[in-house]
């Protein structure tokens, strides 16, 4: 016959085990001005599905491109790479570089993976994403990117490099692209990464 104390303890343990996974409840609520408030589904270059808010957890430098773009988009990638080079190796791992495609039809995970390879992008720091068609305009909306799909499948679009903090709030943005990193944006990145 078990002692009452033992029974209570066992019941307590059982009760705790029956509780749902509490890690969710411990996580702080998403701020009202976080872009991750937008519910959207995407897949990455490895065909792994994720929700937009799964990017939460570290500062991110986000931009929108499409792989068939021959004009400005390669320059955008150059620009982000130039910024990456300015950071220390430790800093580079504390930030995530995210390229989101505005061309979900053609930018399959395979196409995204090809960009990773040809541009020598470090998968530990870089994520290439393809949104579901339904969520694309919304993602562009929260990031402030304007784009138009052309009849031939190409796109006209604005250029935005958006720096998000770990919770998805916009810290800085830049429309400057060129061979070198925008010094203002670089300063903002460093500030975001300082402990």
């Amino acid at each position: 016959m078990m002692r009452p104390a033992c029974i209570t303890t066992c019941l307590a343990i059982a009760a705790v085990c029956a509780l749902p996974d509490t890690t969710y409840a411990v996580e702080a609520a998403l701020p009202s001005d976080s872009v991750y408030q937008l519910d959207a589904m995407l897949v990455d270059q490895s065909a792994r599905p994720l929700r937009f808010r799964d990017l939460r957890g570290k500062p991110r430098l986000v931009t929108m491109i499409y792989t068939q773009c021959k004009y400005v988009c390669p320059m955008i990638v150059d620009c982000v790479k130039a910024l990456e080079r300015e950071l220390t190796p430790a800093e580079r791992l504390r930030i995530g570089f995210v390229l989101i495609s505005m061309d979900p039809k053609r930018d399959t995970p395979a196409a995204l993976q090809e960009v990773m390879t040809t541009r020598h992008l470090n998968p530990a720091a870089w994520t290439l994403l393809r949104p579901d068609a339904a969520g694309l305009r919304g993602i562009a909306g929260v990031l402030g990117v304007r784009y138009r799909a052309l009849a031939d499948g190409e796109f006209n679009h604005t250029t935005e490099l958006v720096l998000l903090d770990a919770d998805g709030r916009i810290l800085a943005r830049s429309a400057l692209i060129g061979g070198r990193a925008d010094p203002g944006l670089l300063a903002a990145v460093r500030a975001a990464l300082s402990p």
Partner: protein
Amino acid sequence: MRRIPVLLGMLSLTCTVAAADSAGGWVSLPGGVFRSALELPDAPDGTRIPAFELARTPVTNREFLDFVRSHPRWRRDRVPAVLAESRYLAHWAGPAELGSTALPEQPVTWVSWFAAEAYCRSQNARLPTWNEWEYAAAADALRRDARSDPAWRETILAWYSRPSTQPLPAVGADSANAYGLRDLHGLVWEWVEDYSALLVSADNREQGAADSLEFCGAAALSTSDRDNYAVLMRVAMLSSLEGAGATANLGFRCARSP
């Protein structure tokens, strides 16, 4: 003898249905090749618009209230700031209550693009594209494309010259256009799905100025039809907005693909 009450019953039923059709409900549009008033260098001979359905009138306060009640995330006291600016639904008396200044049959205004889009999704629908909207709005009461008629333009311009100090009339008050749609002009501006595709220069005098870098290989959109002020002003309006933005004169209606 017994046929008469039956006939009368059927007649009254038809009348009720017809009356109900004057507000709410969907209109089928055949689509086709459509030339925009905007100069689209990638589609100089027009765009092919597939057949689609468009709501007969804009979404009303009452309809949006139902949505907010069943989707409390979109209450003005709960909606995230990134999806709706601070004045979202400011004209309602409370987060889930219209009050006397927001009449049920008025078109809902002070709604952001994200909120409008969420509403349409909840109805298994979507926002119309700019092309679809322009195509539907080219009609007057008799013709499907009245854009070359100066009288059509004048009626639209007359709305712009009326001040906004008057309360909005109820939806459906305007006469139907050739498709059976109402209030595409003269009531409120309306969101479109691709509001952010209207890549125009902020200085509208720079028609087609060649800053190709700004829009990745394209110049800013210009109008091929300078006389079509209705379109010009609508484009200017939509291009000035952010997705979380809202104004007192901006509402929306939904569309469906068959």
